[in-house]
């Protein structure tokens, strides 16, 4: 645990120092997106990595967050900070409503159901006039000359550097929450459910309740990321915000980094986001999709050779380097399961 904290501290220090080293907009932009997606990955990791319920529909919560803070500001001129919390709560409520029927499904069926729910929500937003339907919303820009306090209040900045630090704070808070959760009783219950639903039930854990708690936390965090993203981009429409692309990005970068490990999402995002930004800039319009191709290849290689993700490779290397007196005299035998 102490070692984990050290690693975490190093990661955060590196990210915090980057704006001091370089002020290149493209780099800062990549860092901001990286942090937002790493945070989303952490959120997804709670329900999928810990509790073992694969969700392909996290764009729904992300989008609800983005839309809530935007609408609250756009229609009522209320600060996005309020919208951000409200978005989290609405996303959690939606998560609770969708979870009730979806948790009756297991494995792949659950994953497909979440995918469908996200698509349904997208269609609702496309045809809903109150949220400007398919046209999307451009956020009203506050005066260019506004002071920092006002900018912070409305969460709009001319510079990218404040964004780096805001996202860094968010990411740090979420990763701390996740590592606390991982070692808490709830973390163990979730892992028990992941390893065997039936056994968890037969030792007295109510799986539905614990999965639901995990889902609510996950949806809340995802929605906050959505609000941040909307404030950063300053334009949202349903096709961009509720896209399958976003759901898949969250899934893939966590799988790449390592599912069920708190460092998985940040590692995955650190590989994936710079890669996609780089190919986007270098290859321009013709290059869209190249990053996904490279990424797809990486995922295939990872799942074939190291299903634990990049984390698994790191763990293997560190274990090799200190293979003194590890392991007991116990026979290694596969755990039997049905």
């Amino acid at each position, binding site marked *: 645990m102490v070692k984990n904290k050290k690693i975490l501290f190093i990661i955060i220090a590196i990210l915090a120092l980057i704006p001091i080293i370089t002020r290149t907009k493209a780099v800062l932009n990549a860092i901001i997106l990286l942090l937002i997606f790493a945070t989303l990955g952490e959120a997804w990791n709670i329900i999928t990595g810990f509790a073992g319920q694969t969700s392909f529909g996290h764009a729904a919560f992300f989008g609800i967050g983005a839309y809530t803070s935007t609408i609250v500001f756009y229609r009522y001129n209320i600060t996005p900070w309020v919208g951000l919390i409200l978005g989290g709560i609405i996303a959690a409520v939606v998560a609770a409503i969708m979870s009730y029927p979806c948790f009756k499904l297991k494995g792949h069926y659950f994953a497909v159901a979440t995918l469908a729910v996200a698509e349904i929500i997208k269609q609702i937003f496309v045809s809903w006039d109150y949220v400007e339907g398919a046209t999307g919303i451009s956020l009203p820009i506050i005066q260019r000359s506004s002071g920092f306090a006002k900018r912070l209040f409305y969460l709009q900045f001319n510079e990218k550097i404040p964004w780096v630090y805001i996202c860094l704070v968010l990411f740090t808070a979420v990763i701390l929450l996740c590592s606390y959760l991982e070692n808490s009783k709830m973390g163990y219950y979730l892992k028990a459910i992941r390893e*065997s639903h039936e056994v968890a039930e*037969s*030792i*007295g854990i109510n799986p539905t309740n614990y999965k639901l708690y995990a889902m609510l936390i996950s949806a809340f965090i995802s929605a906050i990321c959505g609000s941040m993203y909307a404030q950063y981009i300053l334009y949202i429409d349903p096709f961009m915000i509720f896209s399958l692309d976003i759901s898949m990005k969250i899934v893939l970068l966590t799988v790449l980094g390592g599912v069920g490990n708190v460092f998985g999402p940040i590692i995955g995002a650190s590989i994936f986001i710079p890669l996609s930004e780089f190919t986007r800039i270098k290859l321009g319009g013709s290059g869209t999709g190249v990053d996904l191709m490279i990424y797809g290849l990486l995922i295939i290689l990872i799942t074939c050779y190291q299903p634990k993700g990049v984390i698994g490779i790191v763990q293997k290397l560190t274990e090799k380097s200190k293979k003194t007196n590890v392991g007991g005299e116990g026979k*290694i*035998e596969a755990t*039997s*399961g049905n």
Partner: protein
Amino acid sequence: MLKVKNLKVGYGNVPVIFDFSFQVKQGDIVAIVGSNGAGKSTLLKTISGILKPTGGEIQFMGERIDTIPAYKIVEKGISHVPEGRQVFGKMSIKDNLLLGAFTIKSEEQKTKLLKDVYEIFPILEERQDQKAETLSGGEQQMLAIARGLMSNPKLLMIDELSLGLAPFLVDKVMDTLKIIRNKVTILLVEQKVQEVLEIADWGYVVQNGRLAIEGTGEELLQSDIVKKAYLGL
């Protein structure tokens, strides 16, 4: 203590158990034996609430339990050791055991239960920080039983104790049952008819989801039906 009356269970439209009745008396070791597909595991899953019966009723300590969800049945004092052991492989042995004590709220009692369990299975204490998947099959079975005991049950149900174990390990695990029977009533479901009927006070033979014969372990071992069908004599 446990009374099952006219139980009917099925998967979808396929009935597995037709009209099965039996009971377990406090302090006994009761064995339910039968071949593959006779409905033995289904029976245990129904008692522990994972499956819901399509008919009949289950009473535990005078209270109907077939309508309440599985996780609440554990609180009533029934612990189910599932088929194929199913320990949490990636967790330490101690964590596996502590998860078994999910329903126990007081930390003091948890520590006491852990101590008791370690007394019965000293090997688990020696290896308490090892991951469960590094244990041998027999040790995993002991861990699964120990995890079942951690909820401080009145009735411990064990599904296919012998599955995947070498014969001498089966004997070893059976021996531990003789120790824990002082604390808890045991309901066993088994394919290894000979071994299990030797230690059982009362046994039931299931065939195709129906009760074929019942009696003391001794009587059943002498009966023609058991001799012919299971012991090959």
